[in-house]
């Protein structure tokens, strides 16, 4: 606590040496820091500290040094340098997990973003009456926690109890939502269902921020609704699209709820299906090598990959916009 007070004081003192600063400004400054403190301390405790702890522990591995069949009942936290990272980057399991989430991102994110954009455009147009009802309706799935949404969908996918599967079978279409090449699509469907409404809201907010005189001007120039959508609305929601895409890419790399829940029904969805699952089950000891060290290494490599992808996307987007 004292550090913060000191910091606040020190900051205040430094500023006060500048002749233009009045006492009032100084006080305001300190008060600002004091108001910041609850956030800053909590942020450091629950966000910064765990990150550094994860980085630190990724250099260690828990091994039995006692030798023999049971290691003498002593586990030692052994410094192993980059061995955990070496394990992660050479692990075929890890890379097939990354491959799965990338494939997933490639399929799911564009579908969802385009769907969200189309819905937002429709709601923003004059075609739709009672916008509030639709807006709330589309947004509602997002209010359902991801795990619960997954459970609901698993019931709808389940061959023996699902009304969808049974209904389709009745008209002669036999679907297996858990079939090897379809299972990723089934997961993507859950995510799309949950998040389309959320992304739609981002787009809708951006659309409604566009000044309406632009539309009027366009109409006077003879533009129809479609032309307005294409030439005015679309370019103006670019920033929102970038945000939605970035959030979605980072979100899908961390894919967890859907495969985790679906693996209960389909045990061939492995405990290392996605990197996030692999990290969790490594820390729990259901995958080997186990423990916090290798698990942290998986999490860190995964975060780096997600960061690089997001940065690449942002760069590419900027390049395209410049042209």
């Amino acid at each position: 606590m004292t550090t913060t007070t000191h910091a606040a004081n020190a900051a205040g003192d430094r500023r006060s040496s500048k002749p233009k600063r009045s006492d009032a400004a100084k006080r305001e400054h300190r008060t600002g820091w004091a108001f910041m403190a609850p956030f800053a301390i909590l942020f450091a405790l629950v966000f910064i500290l765990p990150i550094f702890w994860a980085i630190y522990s990724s250099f260690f591995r828990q091994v039995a040094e006692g030798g023999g069949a049971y290691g003498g009942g002593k586990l030692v936290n052994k410094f192993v340098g980059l061995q955990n990272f070496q394990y992660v980057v050479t692990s075929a399991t890890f890379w097939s997990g990354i491959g799965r989430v990338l494939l997933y991102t490639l399929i799911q994110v564009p579908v969802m973003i385009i769907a969200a954009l189309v819905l937002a455009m429709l709601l923003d147009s004059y075609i739709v009456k009672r916008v509030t009802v639709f807006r709330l309706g589309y947004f509602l799935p997002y209010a359902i926690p991801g795990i619960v949404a997954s459970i609901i969908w698993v019931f709808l996918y389940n061959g023996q109890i699902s009304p969808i599967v049974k209904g389709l079978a009745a008209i002669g279409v036999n679907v297996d939502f858990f079939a090897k090449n379809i299972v990723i699509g089934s997961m993507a469907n859950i995510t799309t269902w949950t998040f389309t409404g959320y992304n739609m809201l981002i787009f809708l907010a951006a659309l409604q921020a566009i000044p309406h005189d632009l539309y009027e001007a366009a109409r006077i120039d003879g533009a129809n609704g479609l032309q307005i959508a294409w030439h005015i609305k679309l370019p103006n929601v670019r920033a929102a699209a970038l945000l939605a895409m970035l959030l979605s890419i980072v979100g899908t790399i961390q894919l967890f709820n859907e495969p985790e829940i679906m693996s209960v029904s389909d045990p061939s969805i492995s405990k290392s299906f996605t990197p996030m699952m692999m990290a969790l089950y490594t820390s729990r000891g259901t995958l080997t090598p186990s423990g916090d060290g290798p698990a942290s290494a998986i999490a860190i490599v995964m975060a780096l990959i997600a960061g690089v992808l997001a940065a690449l996307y942002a760069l590419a987007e900027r390049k395209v916009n410049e042209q």
Partner: protein
Amino acid sequence: MSYKKRLIAGAAAVAAMAMGLAGCGSDANGNASDDSSDGGVVNITYMHRLPDNDGMVLVKDIVAKWNKEHPNIQVKATKFDGKASEMIKKLETDVKNDNAPDLAQVGYAELPEVFTKDMLQDVSEYAEQYKDHFASGPYSLMQVGGKYFGLPQDTGPLVYFYNKAEFDKLGISVPKTADEMVESAKKAAAAGKYIMSYQPDEAGNMISGLAGASGGWYKVVDDAWVVDTETDGSKAVADLYQQLLDAKAATTNARWDASFDASLQDGSLIGTVAAAWEAPLFMGSAGDTGAGDWQVAQLGDWFDNAGKTGPDGGSGVVVLKNSKHPKEAMEFLDWFNTQVSDLVSQGLVPAATTEDAETPEDWSKFFGGQDIMAEFKTANNNMGDFTYMPGFSAVATAMNETAAKAVDGSGKVEDIFSVAQKTSIDTLKNLNLSVKE
């Protein structure tokens, strides 16, 4: 209020918040290292993951009985809601932070791993006097390398559940040999009924138990592990299940998926290998379908097991490393683990031999008036020895994944055992334990 005072007040508020946060971690779980003896009263904490469902005698009520009779040893039981592996992870962290409970439920398969992780306290000196209260098999599963760490609670011998009325209709009886099993299964399948289930998500527990009925996989020779998961028993298990899968004469639903329950409720699944502790869960899954028609039988000689059966689950309670009162903890534990009828109500097949477990009324109603506890006891006495290795959960996970591949035909049942062999050795090596190859 001057500025300085305001700042101090603000700082104090923040500090109080921070303390509140820090406090969250420590006192919620009842902490073994608390000053536990105030005024001569010893406080014991016990973490379990018994079901505590409606109609059962709740753990806290059992404990309350003890607390009433023993004012000097007060026990507080907490239920852990979650999977076994989650609980082990939590206990591991708690032991490191010195705020773990005194007693905790640990599966027999997990005990070696928990020992390797340095979470246990050697209580051999106290265990000895309670030895006669428990069956010798489970009692010996509570030791690692000759040291005892707690007392056994329940056992999970594998038995056969079947719907006798449906069997009679099909004109079959519980098969005695593997060939008879395949033949009857095909006959039943032709009528849309299944007398066996292949449960990929339980492969690690059940198939290891079935294979282990004729002999264990893990042996310690000269203080090093000798691993052989591809025993004759394993081959027999692979052979039978492969035949059933090829003939489409077994269900392939995952045990803990709703589709398994559905197959019981629509009456298509009329026979399955199950662990004894599954009885009440099974009744819940089946609903009213076939209530009163089900029976429990011993496993036939289907897996080259010659009348033996294997373990699937079952737990003991251990004394954790930081416990300050191992003697009192063990005294309570012996009492708790011998509360046979209360434990039976929780769906357990108690390891205690102090009194005969009676079949609860609703169980015997579902199982056609049969005294199924007696069947479980017979199975218990027929259980082969199966030693688990540290890190077995990783092996079980790999087995489950491989088992799932046999369902869609992309793999074979026998692959389960080659994967188990490889994963076992990898796991032991990753833990830096000695392995003889």
